[in-house]
């Protein structure tokens, strides 16, 4: 996180407004880059507040994928022909793009997966199954997405390790002393979200990583919500593993990233077996390529990798620090505006928040809120957001969630507030 973004994200309410400088962020210009925003839903201009589930795609991502399929597409790492070489070069160039984007040290620390879910499963089934044994512990927090819970439960059932859960405060914060209390000499891994997909809380991952390392454990960070909202520097955090999905980053579906430190990846066995991950195959013995290709069996999502590269170029041109400042302004504006509505309660009130406002309303169930908002063109998510344990922890069944992106404008928030007023009217 840059200093400016940090200052905004950690300031109290008033200072949030003071540090917001939206004038120089040409949101209308950027909105024009997203073709989906030009449409109407139920006769109203689309107000897309579901970026936390998946971001809309800028035209240049769509066009880069079309252009690639029209002119450069072939299978990679296989042919001696020109197209295969061209496709391979473009595919591998994205590894460097991702490396720069998260400030990793080496290109070979970047593994292409189908998404963050596969990235976490890969770590669980390769590193986890070889390095962990009965009695070892993995520490996660109560606010994790199912994708950062279930793979560890599967590993638990396979290896006899146990899971320890760090609690969350009523405001939605993870306290360092609670992390410390969960650590022990048995802890081998701490797996935490960078930003909660339900509450928007930004976790102090740098400090958590330091605690994990001091306890002799590795740290995996689920950065799905973070990479699109703020600058991420895996070396500054000192993350051992960092995962995210392309589709939440304005890129296509079915492409994700696993970052792993070079020395750790080198010790990990392959995930899936198949073509492109081998050095040589005989019926007696097969030897595997070095990372990252060891972990990329079969024909990968080539066009999606190209699309992800384009998406990272797009947001890097705008600047992650500027996007973070803009979204902090939108978050402050939305928080202020929604707080004025009496029957509405914001869930997740940490001073360290980014890009997400979850809420409940007195008489209306989140599912009803979602339907009524949709009829007014406003897209939000309603439900448990793939975080059922957190919902139980907070004592709520579901929330409605508005999540923001670089294209979210103050006018979107005004439309949200007006649509919420309609919910009140129906359920008065």
């Amino acid at each position: 996180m840059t200093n400016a973004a940090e200052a905004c994200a950690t300031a109290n309410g008033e200072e949030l407004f003071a540090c917001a400088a939206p004038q120089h962020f040409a949101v209308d210009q950027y909105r024009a880059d997203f073709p989906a925003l030009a449409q109407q839903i139920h006769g109203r201009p689309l107000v897309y507040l579901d970026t936390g589930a998946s971001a809309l795609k800028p035209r240049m991502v769509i066009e880069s994928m079309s252009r690639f399929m029209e002119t450069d597409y072939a299978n990679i790492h296989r042919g001696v022909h020109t197209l295969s070489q061209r496709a391979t070069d473009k595919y591998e160039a994205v590894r460097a793009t991702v490396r720069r984007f998260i400030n990793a040290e080496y290109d070979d620390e970047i593994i292409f997966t189908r998404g963050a879910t596969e990235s976490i499963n890969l770590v669980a089934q390769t590193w986890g199954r070889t390095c962990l044994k009965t009695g070892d512990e993995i520490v996660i927090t109560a606010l994790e997405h199912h994708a950062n819970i279930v793979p560890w439960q599967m590993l638990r059932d396979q290896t006899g390790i146990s899971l320890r859960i760090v609690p969350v405060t009523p405001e939605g914060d993870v306290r360092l002393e609670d992390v410390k209390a969960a650590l022990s000499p048995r802890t081998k891994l701490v797996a935490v979200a960078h930003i909660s997909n339900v509450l928007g809380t930004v976790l102090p991952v740098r400090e958590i990583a330091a605690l994990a390392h001091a306890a002799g454990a590795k740290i995996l960070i689920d950065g799905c919500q973070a990479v699109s909202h703020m600058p991420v520097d895996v070396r500054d955090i000192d993350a051992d593993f960092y995962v995210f999905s392309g589709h939440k980053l304005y890129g296509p579906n079915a492409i994700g990233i696993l970052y792993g430190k070079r020395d750790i990846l080198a010790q990990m066995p392959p995930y899936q077996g198949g073509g492109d991950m081998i050095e040589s195959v005989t019926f007696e013995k097969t030897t595997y390529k070095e990372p990252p290709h060891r972990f990329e069996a079969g024909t990968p999502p080539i066009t999606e990798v190209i699309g992800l590269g384009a998406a990272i170029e797009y947001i890097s041109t705008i600047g992650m620090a500027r996007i973070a400042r803009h979204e902090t302004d939108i978050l402050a504006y939305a928080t202020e505006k929604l707080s004025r509505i009496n029957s509405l309660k914001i869930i997740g009130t940490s001073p360290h928040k980014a890009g997400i406002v979850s809420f409940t309303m007195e008489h209306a169930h989140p599912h009803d809120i979602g339907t009524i908002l949709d009829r007014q063109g406003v897209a939000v998510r309603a439900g448990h957001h793939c975080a059922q344990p957190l919902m139980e922890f907070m004592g709520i069944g579901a929330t409605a969630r508005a999540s923001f992106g670089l294209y979210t404008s103050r006018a979107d928030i005004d439309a949200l507030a007006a649509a919420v007023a309609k919910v009140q009217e129906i359920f008065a």
Partner: protein
Amino acid sequence: MNAMEANDLRDLYQDLILDHGKRPRNFRAVPTANHEALGHNPLCGDRLNLYVTVDNNGVIQDAAFQGSGCAISVASASMMTEMLKGKTAAQAAHLFDYLHNACTGKPADANGIDSDDIDRIQALSGVRDYPIRVKCATLAWHTLQAALKDEKKVSTE
């Protein structure tokens, strides 16, 4: 919001639905019930415990529920408990069939169904324009089927 959109939403959230959603009838646990089941819609987290008491002649004497969910699912469960009393399992199945067709915009055979029940189902049938909400309207009825078959749990996902 223009008039068309407002009418649209009021088709879904009719007064009868809002009333049952806010003040569900037969909202109680019945420890002595001889059939019960838990209904769950993981998409929205709706949960309901249904208690049905059937007499020796196969007639439903009492139906009640407890749980939480959206206005549509709570109203549907509440109205269902009102409709079930005095009906046999076969009559209940016919009602569900009628309701399911009404809620999915298919032709529905109202033959043999009380006018009160038709009114209730009519109020619910606004979901036909909201395909993702049909499950909310039918959760209680799926749970009823499970209860009468003595399956303990049902999920609409």
